[in-house]
């Protein structure tokens, strides 16, 4: 197949002292696609994100993004290639305001001198306000991130990714701890921002996955188990066994 995917994970294995967290995993994601990665705990979902984002080096295999090899790059280099990652537990700068959080992630002035000389220009202000509106935080824009609710912190983190204008967004459990209303809003948000980019979502909430995912990949014990639409996957006997069989 000559089709060049946006993200290609090829035969990746990660071994910790003999224990294989990810085992010969392959995965291909395209633009304008929301891919959900599901699987029981310990299936290797977060490890997969660690590998793509450069946090963990694979023992073997390769990851290529927009044609470039990612496995040798450091985290900030992967980010600069156009990949944004949201963590399982909300990871925002608690002692800065929502505005400052978003401004911090603005893709300009990314070294010491650049940050020192960084001017809060009109373009910056407009961009920050635009993103704040998208993530439902326009009226909280001057508040300290530390006082936001759990769900709002998750949105802020998504906003911090969005402002970098990434080509691939990876969200690790974006709706964990959210109310039903918040989940709805998050689903709408994701459907909006998948335009022109790829989104990978690791989640446990099957309803949410059903709502947003174009395609679903199931992992189990670090290995690829099944893939397809949510309906296909839910009927796959291997998947049923893994989720219900234990």
């Amino acid at each position, binding site marked *: 197949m000559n089709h060049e995917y946006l993200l290609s994970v090829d035969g990746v294995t990660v071994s*910790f*002292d003999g*224990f294989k*967290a990810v085992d010969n995993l392959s995965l291909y994601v395209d633009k304008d696609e929301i891919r959900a990665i599901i699987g029981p705990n310990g299936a290797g979902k977060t490890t997969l994100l660690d590998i793509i984002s450069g946090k963990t080096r694979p023992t073997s295999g390769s990851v290529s993004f927009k044609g470039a090899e990612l496995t040798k790059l450091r985290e900030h280099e992967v980010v600069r290639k156009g990949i944004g990652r949201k963590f399982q537990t909300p990871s925002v700068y608690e002692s800065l305001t929502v505005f400052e959080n978003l401004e911090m992630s603005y893709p300009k002035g990314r070294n010491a001198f650049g940050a020192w000389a960084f001017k809060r220009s009109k373009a910056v202000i407009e961009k920050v306000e635009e993103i704040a509106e998208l993530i439902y935080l326009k009226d909280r824009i001057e508040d300290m991130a530390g006082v936001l609710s759990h769900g709002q912190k998750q949105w802020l983190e998504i906003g911090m990714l969005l402002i970098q204008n990434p080509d691939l967004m990876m969200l690790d459990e974006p709706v964990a701890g959210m109310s039903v209303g918040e989940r709805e809003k998050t689903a709408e948000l994701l459907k909006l921002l998948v335009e022109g980019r790829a989104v990978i979502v690791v989640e446990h909430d099957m309803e949410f996955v059903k709502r947003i995912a174009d395609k679903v990949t199931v992992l189990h014990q670090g290995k690829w188990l099944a893939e397809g639409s949510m309906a296909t996957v839910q009927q796959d006997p291997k998947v049923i066994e893994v989720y219900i069989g234990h």
Partner: protein
Amino acid sequence: MDSVSDLGAIFVMQGFNGLSNFCVLLLMALGLAIIFGQMGVINMAHGEFLTIGAYTTFLLSELAHSVGASWLIESYFVIAIVIAFFVAAAVGFLVEYLLIRHLYARPLDTLLATWGLSLILQQAFRSTFGAREVSATLPEWLMGSVQPTPTIDIPINGLVVMGLTAVLTSAVFFALLRSRWGVRVRATTQNRVMSSATGINTRRVDRITFSLGCGLAGIAGAAFTTIGSTGPTAGSLYIVDTFLTVVFGGAQSLVGAIASAFSIAQTQATMEFFMSGSTAKVLTLLAVITILMLRPQGLFATRVRG
């Protein structure tokens, strides 16, 4: 002439000269490996526990000589080792209770606070014993040397210290790997919450572990009296070396601590033969931190998840 065997003899003797120093360093490193490696506590006052042990030995020496009983004069040293352990451990117990237990999640703060403690202890020594160095009078049987060959002279106190260190090292290993205390310590280190949930009194485990580490430093202090005189800052000579030793070996590895103490002490002793003491020290320290810059996890660290 037997110049080759002469040179060999020199190396052996030089080796043994370094050996007492190595033993003190090793005992200190073992104590610190337990406290730092297992508990993650930075005890900058670790050197002062050595001084506590050394002064204890000195006091017992004075006591033995003032009482005058010859059996006491001959045997006090062995008693001193035991008492030094308990005195240092008791002080350690108090320190953990008053200070350390408030600072467990804050390693940099523990570093500063224990440094403050070390200053206080040093002044306490100075006020109690005076600024001048004192020496314990070693019993007869510790003096002198054996001569396996005409050219090799091995000091007896070196052998005794070595034997003591070997016994203690095995004891620590055995305790940590086999005893119930050892299991509790390792469980607490690896998963405090879970350990507490399964009924382990983590507070008590911490306190006993810390005291044990300090007690080992106390024994190092008793051993130290065989190689040098004791002043208020005697322990501070060892603190940087001890930390580097533990970090160099891989903080959580006891085997690493042993290998590390050996290589550092021996390198320095060997180099001292060829150049001035200060240059040897500088080069040894430089070598250690250069290697640490290249391999920050130390010699014996395993790849851990996350």
